[in-house]
């Protein structure tokens, strides 16, 4: 297999360009990562990062919103603008030959957005509807609420924001938020696919090189004591979301933590899937996900089940989480390694996936991990390493959010429900 080359160039203003040339593809994808996600929303304007993600493409440079959309559409560009918790992501995929022309348009979007005042009410209306639609999606609602109760402020702020926050945003506060977050020295541009590095580097230098740097916004993370919560709703299912502490992405035990998470709920042969769904038929959906910030991380889980079986589902789940400390099989770890390895290779077939992973790597680690490095990390996982991690970081205490007709009896390893029911 051909090994890939990862290119890197830091502009004098601090903006980072990273790129990977992928052979045999005609497409190219890029991802601008801008530190300015929902955690950066001022407390009285929660939701502003989502509004900015939507407003930033509504006209830029010499082009109106429609002109901008039409020039990108003409390149068949598939784009997305999303507000994550830590960063805004502006992503785009197209054919590689259109890349330089598309980047010209993005230089306007990032540097010269109009943020037109007359369009703000429409964008606020969309955000409010989005927030409303969350009420019609209990599985999403319960996860959002779990993040809210679990993570320390302001990391617990989600991109949906609040109705009051969305309404409080004005054209000038939006402009101020843009000025605060969009600094070249915080921005990472990751590109993957059919690229010509010399040409790409020259294009990016020309388009972004004269953008003056400035001071970056900082997050003040406050101490926080999570509490479990029940949300009352007459749903068919009881939706259970839960979280317990883990290690962040830059921690030496990160991959041991990921392996433990996958042993619990990775493939269909994982423990939770087997015990909760396959053996007992308790639910259709059950999942675990590792959620990381720079210094804080958690494993976040979800299960949805009939109200009459929710108590049993929670108990079986918690029991499995504890049982991992008793031992880890060689065969389990081999399966995890096989899954990680093939995932690593298949990642190389998707330009969009590669661009996103490269941007995230640089953001958290200050470098992009090579294929060989990743392979070595995966090879080095053993049952002993995973078990030691599971014992050093037991799956407790578990913070739980339930949404359904009735609260549950939380097992003793769970954080109790808050006093005031909702």
């Amino acid at each position, binding site marked *: *297999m051909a090994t890939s080359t990862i290119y890197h160039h830091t502009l004098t203003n601090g903006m980072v360009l990273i790129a990977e040339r992928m*052979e*045999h*593809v005609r*497409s190219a994808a890029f991802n601008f990562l801008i530190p300015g996600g929902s955690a950066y929303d001022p407390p009285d304007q929660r939701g502003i990062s989502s509004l900015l993600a939507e407003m930033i493409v509504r006209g830029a440079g010499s082009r109106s919103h*429609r002109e901008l*959309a*039409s020039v990108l*559409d*003409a*390149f*068949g560009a*598939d*784009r997305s603008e999303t507000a994550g918790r830590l960063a805004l992501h502006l992503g785009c*995929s*197209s*054919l590689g030959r259109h890349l330089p022309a598309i980047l010209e348009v993005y230089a306007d979007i990032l540097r010269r957005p109009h943020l037109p005042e007359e369009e703000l*009410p*429409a*964008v*606020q*209306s*969309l955000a409010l*509807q989005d927030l*409303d*639609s969350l009420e*019609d999606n*209990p*599985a999403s609602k319960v996860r959002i609420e779990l993040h809210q109760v679990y993570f320390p402020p302001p990391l617990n702020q989600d991109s949906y924001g609040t109705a009051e926050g969305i309404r409080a945003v004005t054209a000038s506060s939006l402009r101020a938020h843009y000025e605060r977050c969009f600094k070249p020295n915080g921005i990472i541009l990751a590109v993957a696919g059919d690229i010509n590095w010399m040409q790409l580097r020259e294009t990016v230098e020309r388009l972004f090189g004269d953008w003056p740097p400035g001071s970056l916004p900082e997050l003040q993370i406050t101490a926080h004591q999570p509490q479990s919560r029940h949300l009352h*709703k*007459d*749903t*068919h*299912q009881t*939706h259970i979301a839960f979280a317990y502490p883990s290690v962040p992405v830059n921690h030496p035990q990160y991959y041991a933590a990921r392996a433990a998470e996958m042993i619990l709920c*990775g*493939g*269909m*042969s994982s423990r939770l899937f*087997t015990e909760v*769904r*396959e*053996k*007992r*038929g*308790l639910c*259709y959906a059950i999942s675990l996900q590792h959620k990381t910030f720079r210094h804080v991380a958690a494993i976040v889980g979800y299960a*949805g089940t*009939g109200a009459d079986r929710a108590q049993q589902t929670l108990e079986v789940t918690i029991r499995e989480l504890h049982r991992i400390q008793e031992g880890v099989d060689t*065969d389990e770890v081999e*399966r995890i390694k*096989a*899954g990680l*390895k*093939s*995932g690593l290779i*298949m990642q190389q*077939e*998707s*330009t969009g996936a590669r661009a996103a992973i490269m941007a995230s790597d640089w953001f958290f680690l200050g470098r992009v991990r090579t294929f060989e490095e990743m392979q070595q990390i995966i090879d080095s996982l053993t049952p002993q390493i995973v078990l030691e991690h599971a014992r050093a970081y037991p799956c407790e205490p578990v913070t739980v959010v339930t949404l359904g007709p009735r609260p549950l009896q939380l097992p003793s390893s769970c954080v109790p429900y808050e006093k005031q029911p909702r």
Partner: protein
Amino acid sequence: MPFFHTRLENGLTVLVETVPTARSVAVGFFVNTGARDETEAEAGVSHFLEHMTFKGTARRSAWDVNRDFDRIGAAYNAYTSEENTVFYAAVLPEYLPVAFDILADILRPSLRPEDFETEKKVILEEIRMYEDVPESVAWEHARKLYYNGHPLGHSILGTQSSIQALTREQMLAYFERRYGAANIVVSVAGPIDAELVTSLARQHCGQWFRGSSGRTDRREWRRDPGTFVLTRERVLQEHVMLLTAGPPAGSPHRFAGDILAMAIGDDRGSRLYWELVDPGHAESADCNYYEHDGSGCIHTSFSCEAEVAEANLERVQRILAEVQQHGITDEELRVAKNKIASRIVRASERPMGRMSSLARQWLTTGSYHDVDTELRLYDAVQLDDIRTCLDLYPVDTCTVIAFGPAQRLAGVDAIVV
């Protein structure tokens, strides 16, 4: 790309596209059966059977199936639609023989009674899960009302009562009827040669019973326009769906159908986007064209606050009437073609994309197009072709179904569902 196809003696179709530069290989078993092939008493059996295949075979327990897939690091799953039940896996090339073995094995499931009862509970939870999502409930009602007895309106999941009443014997009978080799297409794409795939197919599927292929009820469905307003407590958003006929699968008009739907209601830069979403009138608005065997359809839909549903419906109906009368512009045609070309190229860069595309084309047209041919077919569409498609399949005579808090819409009172 080198393409190969063959049919085994028992009627199993094997399709292979060799992509020497790919790093993974994708393999899929496409059973030409789904909700539309069920009798009323069997409602939901296709999807339930799809679940049951993973519960074990003569050679493997349910646990063995999952463990064997996970051991080779497979990305695997299955899904059921109105007319297809698909089992697939993507693996590193050296694991193709194992992945093929597991997939072929689970397509001859044991359907053990105790597994049947356990999995029934999972299916019932899946139905309850979707019951909690108003948008899913809305679409379920919309298809049922639009198809009004035509089998394409059958529910994929079935209902609590149909699943509860379903027996293992009914499932076995359905299996005998629909899972014969002659009704299955195996599609493989990746850095592998056709000989290997053929020999795997002979080895693992050569003994399968032939069975029958295709389906009997392939009527093209056209419905008189009408409006249905449905309501239910504790739903916040209004979902409005406008359904009408489109070119059937394999029709020469399907390329025009795709382009039309994209110009009307792609999620960005379409007429619906500019008139509903951009000004903030609706949270989302889309238009999609679906090919089905014998009968296609065009779905236009939007979701918004109930108070503005009426005004939005008028906007959408005006857009559809304008398109019907004047067609789309040169610019819209060009943009839609560019978007489609870019999507085809990007999807084709992964073996999973090619594997699915091969199988879908074969099932609908009985033929093969490589990526460049597919691109040319879209590129050849002119405004005249769009006009012809509109004349044959008008987009402005829709059945309208609304679901949400609105108590009255377009002069029709809501009924509680």
